[in-house]
């Protein structure tokens, strides 16, 4: 009788389990790919590939529960370490496979580190503009800032994920010792637009200052969804309350007076600070002659830090890296710009502690596979051509 621990190890190291995991990941990848036509990339990424479990609706009606990619890859990593590295016989014939497995493990670990630690967003600049922060593509937050004389400002932020649950009803109240009021959030909508209550659809909706929030169907391009939410501020001292609608595209924040102080409350995309400043000196957009096919997009930027500046060029396939941040040429606009109209450049900004892991892992994997199949081919050819063997030879 095997001990339970041994049994568990054998199961984890099993080739059969590896096959099942490969097939499940294969099915998940296929379904997630096809689903992107309906739901868009971001939604599918979150539901199928950045999750432990997912329910796929086959044909839109039949629920099909599946493990998510996080779970499958975790199990695959365990299987790989147990069966493909620890238990594997260490001899020259299997050296290539062993090296390949180490490379794949490195790739998976790099993926996990990125998923947990990487931050990404973008900065959009016209020529002559500069910025020392970048904005997330998808993440929203509620920012509460005290407005003081002289432009001084203290900000508190509530991540969007904390109040997104109010979309299905109910409310959430946020309390902070430093604030002289409680803030209650309700009626979150991932994509919404404020409308005048006097309009044809305004009857029955919750109205604030003559407006209500109309939820819209979320669009596939997730970054184009503009959320909205109702907030109620209750003053600790007076007990008085004030209601407001916050919408992602509103031009200025809601201003609240509480405890004799003025506060601005804003719904905005998450902003992250850079430890240096980037200025856009020049943006070049070139098309192939007499076509609308893009040939070159290039941003000439200056990195400014502690008074020292350094110039760099960022174009497709040629990012700029500095202090763990990488800047990529992502897009430009306005989309229908007329000749001579100023253009802006959008730079994608990524900070990924495991940025180089895929490269190192790739080298290891390719070396391992090359070694393994090279050895196999050599042995096969030798066997095929041994004197006295029939054509085709025995294995």
């Amino acid at each position, binding site marked *: 009788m095997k001990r339970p621990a041994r049994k568990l190890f054998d199961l984890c190291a*099993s*080739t*059969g389990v*590896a*096959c099942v995991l*490969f*097939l499940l*990941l*294969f099915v998940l*990848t*296929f379904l*997630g*790919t096809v689903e*992107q*036509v309906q739901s868009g*990339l971001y939604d599918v*990424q979150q539901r199928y*590939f950045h999750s432990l479990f997912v329910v796929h609706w086959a044909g839109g009606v039949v629920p099909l529960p599946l493990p998510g990619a996080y779970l499958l890859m975790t199990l695959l990593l365990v299987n790989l370490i147990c069966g493909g590295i620890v238990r594997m016989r260490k001899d020259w014939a299997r050296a290539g496979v062993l090296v390949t497995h180490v490379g794949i493990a490195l790739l998976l670990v*790099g*993926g996990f580190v*990125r998923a947990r630690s990487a931050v*990404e967003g973008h900065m959009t600049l016209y020529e002559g503009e500069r910025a020392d922060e970048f904005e997330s593509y998808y993440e929203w937050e509620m920012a509460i800032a005290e407005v003081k004389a002289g432009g001084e400002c203290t900000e508190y932020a509530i991540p969007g994920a904390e109040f997104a649950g109010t979309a299905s009803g109910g409310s959430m109240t946020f309390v902070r010792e430093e604030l002289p009021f409680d803030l209650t959030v309700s009626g979150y909508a991932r994509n919404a637009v404020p409308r005048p209550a006097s309009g044809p659809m305004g009857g029955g909706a919750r109205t604030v200052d003559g407006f209500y929030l109309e939820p819209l169907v979320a669009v*596939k391009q997730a970054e184009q969804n503009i959320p909205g939410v109702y907030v109620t501020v209750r003053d600790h001292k007076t007990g008085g309350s004030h209601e407001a609608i916050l919408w992602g595209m509103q031009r200025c924040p809601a201003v609240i007076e509480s405890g004799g102080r003025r506060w601005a409350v804003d719904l905005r995309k998450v902003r992250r600070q850079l430890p240096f400043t980037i200025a856009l000196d020049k943006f070049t957009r070139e*098309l*192939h*002659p*007499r*076509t609308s*096919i*893009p*040939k*070159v*997009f290039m941003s000439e930027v200056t990195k400014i830090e502690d008074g020292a500046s350094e110039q760099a060029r960022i*174009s*497709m*396939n040629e*990012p700029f890296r500095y202090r763990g941040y*990488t800047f*990529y040429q*992502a897009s430009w606009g306005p989309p229908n710009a007329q000749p001579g109209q100023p253009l802006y450049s959008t730079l*994608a*900004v*990524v900070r990924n502690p495991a*940025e180089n892991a*895929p*490269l190192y*892992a*790739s080298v290891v*994997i*390719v070396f391992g*596979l090359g070694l393994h*199949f090279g050895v*196999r*081919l050599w042995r*096969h050819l030798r066997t*095929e051509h041994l004197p006295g063997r*029939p*054509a*085709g030879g025995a*294995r």
Partner: protein
Amino acid sequence: MMRWNAPVVALVAAVWAAFAAMPARAGAAPPITWDEEVVELFSTLPIQSEGRIKPLSTYAAFKLLKLNGRRTYRDPEGWKRDSMEWLLDCLFFPEAARDYPVFLIENYDTADAIGVARDGKKKRDRYSYAELLPGRDRLLSLGEQYSGVPAKERTYTQSQLVNLASNLREFEQILLYLDFARCSYPVESPVLPGPIENRLSAVLERAPVLRVALAVLDHGMESLGQLLGEEEARRMRAALPEGIAEPDEATRAAGREAIRALLDEVDEMGLRAAGLALFPPSAPRDVAAEWLAPGDMVSLAFFSDRPIDGELALLRDLEDLAAARDDEARFTECLRRFHGGVAGRARSRGEYDTIRTEVTFYKAKFFHRSLVLFLACFLFVAIMWMRPGSRALARLAPVALLAPTGLLLAGIVFRCVIRGRPPVTTLYETILFATLVAVSVSLFIEFMNRRKTAVSVAVVLGVAGLFLANKYEVREGVDTMPSMVAVLDTNFWLSTHVTTIIMGYAAGLLAAALGHVYILGRAAGFKRGDEGFYDAVARMVYGVTCFGFLFATMGTVLGGIWAAQSWGRFWGWDPKENGALMIVLWQAAVLHARKGGYIRDLGLGASAVFGGMVIVFSWWGINLLGVGLHSYGFTSGILHSLLAFYAIETVVLLAAGAVGLRMKRCDAGVANSARS
């Protein structure tokens, strides 16, 4: 021999006599054949089109391919003509080219929708411009209307109408192109700042004076100083005709009318001559990248201060050429001058280096000839299987296959040289390269094991690959060497990621083909009892799957690194990335299942067939989804072909299931009889 040789010789002589009797250039009638030198000079004339400099012959070939579905056509007399001659007829003899049936219409509904008579036409037939003319306005209106409908939602006839309207407009651009050289301009008025020669280039030369004259007529002579500065104004005053200096109202009105009439005519001709950018700018390439059409010169002459004297000299040469169309000797002489001017300037800008190579490439018809030789090899291999005892045939077959493979390789190398790029940069090139890899690996296997299986599969894949490439080229009808979008403009990643992933595709498809041999051979009872044959096929499937797995994995990982370079992330679950991952996952599952003993030879063969389906999904199916960052690879219009492929492959997999059941029953039967 003599009995049948005589009539053949007589027939050939009669055809030759008829051919020779036809006037090469008779009056305004279209020439039956263009002089060889003329065709050669036009073929090697450079033109800027779709963002690159290419020979005019390439431009002509793809234009005709788009309209006509092939690079040749039959003129009303039934003579087969090539695309260069067609373009020359369109440019220089538009009155004849109107009657050439070069518009391919796929169904009656399209013709009926625009109200075109289709008496005597087949369902899929070719129409001339003259035949389409009664329905022209309706066609353009419907084309515009349906182009607003998303491509995926258009009916077949709507798509046909959109394409036909686009083809008609492109044809008209060519047909009307040289109207500027045939037109008579109203330059005789005495109030014009003249004399002006009756040709566009002369009018454009006088454009600054005409502009000033119009300003003087509108605002008076005193406006000139403010407009141009005193010195330039003094110079211009001298160039203006007498009456304009102190015009009375009648002179003013007549002058305005004369100039406006001239400018209207010039404007109209400029619009007609906006299509073919045949004129390299005098300035260096980094200063002025865009070549000019006469229409551009009109805009530059009247609306900019950029000097275009050098371009106007070439325009004069083209005008002379157009005027000399009925005088063969003079036409050739003018053409030599025009060609020399354009090619010389292109050469000085470093834009003529690959023109002759490209003309040679298309003339050599590498891929067409390779396909013909593959078909011949197919017959050879069929004979080889019919004479199983012949060792000579078996030895000769892979050697024979080297010829079409060599042609295919040569064609790909030519394309690399012309483009200065690695072998795979477009979907079309993926087919060529995958075919080359699959055939080469097959030949390698054949030379190793001499079992006749790999060489047979190589022939089938060679024919299928080149047939598909040809179909794809005809269907798309656009230049297969297009300008690269910014994200693809990197030879390093194109030569590493793209090349390796296509090698992975090719190997996977080869494994699938070998899987078919295993399954269908077993199902049909081929080589029954010869287990050595099936063992060998299974070993080939395994070996090629390993090869494919190696390259698919390398390609996928390299793609991730490229994505990290250009998009900022290694992996984004984009559909094209997922397609590559699915191939890797499937092949990993198959190799592990074989190692674990979960599948045996038949299972391996069936897995390889299914792997082929996965590869086709990744290669083509995903392009139909129309989502993701790999938008440069989107495709449409191949859904039915894909569905047919999947239906056939499903039948093969069902056959594999049936074979498995039969083998199980046989094994059980053998075990029972052994027990009894």
